C-alpha cells in the first residue's frame, strides 16, 4: 500500500513542481528523490512496516513476491531517470508533467503487483496505459509520435473492451470479481466446478493481457509505438511497464490457471499450456525473425522486446517456483540492459545500424557498455541475461513436457544473436564516424556501474533472488 499511495502523492507533487519550481533541470532530481523515498517505502512495506493503515477489503493481496518486483520496478525507474531523465527536456515544456505521469504509471505498477480483484486489475491496467498514451504522443509536432499515440490509444481502448468482456464472462461464471474463487459447493461435485463462461472469459482476459505484454499475435502495436514514441519514453515503456504487465499476467495465471486447471481438467480437459505454447511460438517467431531485417536499431529493439517477451511467457507456461524466480531475474536483466541500450541510443544522432559504425573508436566506454548490454540481451553467460534465459528454460524443462518448445526457443535465441551482434559488429569492426551528442563523464560512470551490475547479477543471480525469501 505504501508504494501505491506515495507514488500517487509524489505524482501530485511533481505536478505542483511544474509551476512552483522554475528550474526545469531540477525536476529530475526531485523525481529521483521521490523514487528513492518510494523505494524505501516499498522496502519498508515488504519488511512489514505499513505507513498507512487502510482496510482494502481484500482488494489487494500483498506478498513478498509482488512487493519485491515492485522494488525492482522502482529501482529500474530510478536508474532510468538518472541515466536518461535529462532527455525528457527535449520534448516540450511539460517535463514535470512527464514525471508526474511516470509516477502514476508506477502507481499502476504497484497496483498490478498486488491486485487481488479483477476490478483492481482493470484499474491498474488503465492507470498503466493512459499515461503511456500521452507519453507516446508527447512529441506533439512529430507526426510519428502522433501516429504512434493514435494507434496505441485505439488498440489499447479496443483491448480494454476485450478485457472487460472477459471479466464480465468470468463474473458470470463465478459470481465474484475476486481472484480466488471460494467454490463452496464447487470442488465437491465435478462439472459444476466452473462454468464454461469463466473459461471463455479467462481466454479473453488472457488475450488482453497478452496484448499489454505485446505477445504475438497481439503484438502489432509494439513496433510502431516503440518506434514512434520519443526514444526516452520507449525505454520506459519497453522495460518497467512491460515487466509490470508480466507480473500482473503471472499473478492472474498463478491463481486462475492453476485453480481452473485443477478444478476441471477431468471435465473439460483444459490445457492452458497449449494456449501459451501457441503464444510463445508465435511471439518468438515474429519477434526474432522480423527483427533480423530491421535497419533502425530502435525498431530492432522494439522487435527484440517482443522476442524477449516470448521468453518471459515461459514463466506463464510452466508456473512453478523457477518461473517465479525467473521472471524476477528476467525483469532485472532485461529492464536494466534495455534501459542502458536506450540510454546510449538517445545519445546517437543516427538510429540506423550504420549510425553505430566505428563507435568503439570514438566512444570506447559507450561501445563497451553497449556490448555488455547486448550480450546480456542475447543471453551470453557472465551477464544477467544468461540466467534470465536459464531460469525460463529450466522452468519448462522442469515440467518435463514440451521439450520441443525449449529447443525451438533456443534456436530462436541463436537467431537473436544475429541482430544483436549486428550492432556489435557495427561498433567494433566497421569503420565510420558514429555521431553522438556530448557525453558527460557522469553518464559514462552510470553506464559503467550499470554494466558492472549486470555482470554481477550474471555471476551471482542469487544476490537478486535471496531477497525474495527474507
Amino acid at each position, binding site marked *: 500500500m505504501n508504494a501505491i499511495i506515495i507514488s*500517487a502523492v509524489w505524482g501530485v507533487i511533481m505536478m505542483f513542481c511544474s509551476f512552483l519550481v522554475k528550474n526545469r533541470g531540477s525536476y529530475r532530481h526531485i523525481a529521483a528523490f521521490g523514487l528513492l523515498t518510494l523505494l524505501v517505502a516499498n522496502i519498508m512495506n515488504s519488511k512489514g512496516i505499513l505507513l498507512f493503515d487502510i482496510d482494502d477489503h481484500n482488494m489487494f493481496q500483498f506478498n513478498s513476491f509482488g512487493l519485491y518486483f515492485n522494488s525492482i520496478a522502482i529501482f529500474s525507474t530510478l536508474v532510468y531517470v538518472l541515466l536518461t531523465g535529462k532527455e525528457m527536456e527535449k520534448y516540450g515544456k511539460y517535463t514535470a508533467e512527464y514525471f*508526474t*505521469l511516470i509516477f502514476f504509471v508506477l502507481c499502476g505498477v504497484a497496483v498490478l503487483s498486488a491486485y487481488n480483484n479483477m476490478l483492481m486489475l482493470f484499474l491498474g491496467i488503465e492507470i498503466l496505459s*493512459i499515461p503511456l498514451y*500521452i507519453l507516446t504522443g508527447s512529441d506533439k509536432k512529430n507526426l510519428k509520435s502522433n501516429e504512434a499515440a493514435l494507434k496505441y490509444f485505439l488498440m489499447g481502448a479496443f483491448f480494454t473492451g476485450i478485457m472487460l468482456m472477459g471479466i464480465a464472462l468470468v463474473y458470470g461464471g463465478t459470481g465474484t470479481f475476486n481472484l480466488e474463487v471460494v467454490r463452496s459447493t464447487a470442488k465437491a461435485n465435478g462439472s459444476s466446478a466452473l462454468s464454461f*463462461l469463466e473459461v471463455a472469459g479467462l481466454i479473453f482476459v488472457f488475450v488482453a493481457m497478452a496484448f499489454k505484454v505485446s505477445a504475438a499475435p497481439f503484438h502489432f502495436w509494439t513496433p510502431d509505438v516503440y518506434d514512434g514514441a520519443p526514444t526516452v519514453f520507449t525505454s520506459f515503456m519497453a522495460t518497467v511497464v512491460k515487466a509490470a504487465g508480466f507480473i500482473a499476467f503471472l499473478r492472474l495465471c498463478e491463481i486462475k490457471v492453476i485453480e481452473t486447471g485443477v478444478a476441471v481438467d477431468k471435465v473439460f480437459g483444459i490445457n492452458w499450456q497449449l494456449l501459451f505454447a501457441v503464444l510463445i511460438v508465435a511471439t518468438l517467431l515474429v519477434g526474432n525473425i522480423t527483427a533480423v531485417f530491421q535497419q533502425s536499431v530502435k525498431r530492432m529493439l522494439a522487435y527484440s522486446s517482443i522476442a524477449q517477451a516470448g521468453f518471459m511467457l515461459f514463466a506463464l507456461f510452466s508456473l512453478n517456483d523457477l518461473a517465479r524466480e525467473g521472471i524476477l531475474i528476467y525483469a532485472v536483466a532485461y529492464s536494466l540492459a534495455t534501459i542502458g541500450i536506450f540510454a546510449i541510443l538517445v545519445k546517437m544522432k543516427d538510429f540506423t545500424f550504420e549510425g553505430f559504425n566505428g563507435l568503439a573508436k570514438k566512444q570506447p566506454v559507450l561501445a563497451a557498455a553497449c556490448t555488455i548490454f547486448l550480450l546480456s540481451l542475447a543471453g551470453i553467460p557472465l551477464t544477467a541475461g544468461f540466467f534470465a534465459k536459464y531460469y525460463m528454460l529450466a522452468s519448462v524443462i522442469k515440467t518435463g513436457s514440451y521439450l520441443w518448445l525449449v529447443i525451438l526457443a533456443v534456436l530462436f535465441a541463436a537467431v537473436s544473436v544475429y541482430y544483436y551482434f549486428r550492432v556489435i559488429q557495427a561498433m567494433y569492426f566497421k569503420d565510420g564516424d558514429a555521431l553522438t551528442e556530448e557525453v558527460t563523464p557522469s553518464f559514462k560512470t552510470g553506464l559503467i556501474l550499470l554494466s558492472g551490475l549486470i555482470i554481477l547479477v550474471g555471476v551471482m543471480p542469487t544476490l537478486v533472488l535471496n531477497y525474495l525469501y527474507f
Partner: protein
Amino acid sequence: MDITQILFWILSALALFAAIMVLVSKNPVHSVLWLIVVFFAISGHYILLNAQFLAIVNLIVYAGAIMVLFLFVIMLMNLNAEAEPQKNNWMKIIGVVTGGLLLWVLVSAVRSAADMSSRTATLKTGDIGLIQNLGKVLFNDYAVPFEISSVLFLSAMVGAVVIGKKD
C-alpha cells in the same frame, strides 16, 4: 407474454438497429446520434432490470457528457459525409465477417455454458440497483478502488492538458 417481455424485445431490437446504423451511416454526426439512441435503449434495459442508478448515470455520463463531447469534436472539425474516409468494400466485408466470427465464438461459448441454461435475469424486482445500496458498498468495500480511480482521472487530466494544450 407480458409487457416487460414486449419491452425487452422492443428495446433489444432498437438497440441492435441503432447500433447497426452507427456503423452504416456515412455522416459522423448521424453515427453519434444513433449511438445515443443505443445508449437510451440500454438504459431502458437497465430500468427493466431495476438498476435505476446505472440507468440514470448511463444517460448522464454517456449520452449526456461523452457523446456531447464527441459531437463538439466532430463539429469543431466539421466532419461530414463527404469528408468521411471510406474503406474499400473488401475490407468492409472482411471486417463484418470477422465480427461475425467473433460473435459465433461468443455465442457458442455462451451456449456451451450449460449451467446458464437454467438461469434467468429477474426483472422489475430486487433493490440492489438502488442508489443507497450501491452507495453503501461503494464507500465500504470499494473505497480503495474508488480512490485509486482518482489517480486515473488525474493522469487523464494531466494528459489532456499536455496533449491538448496548444503551444
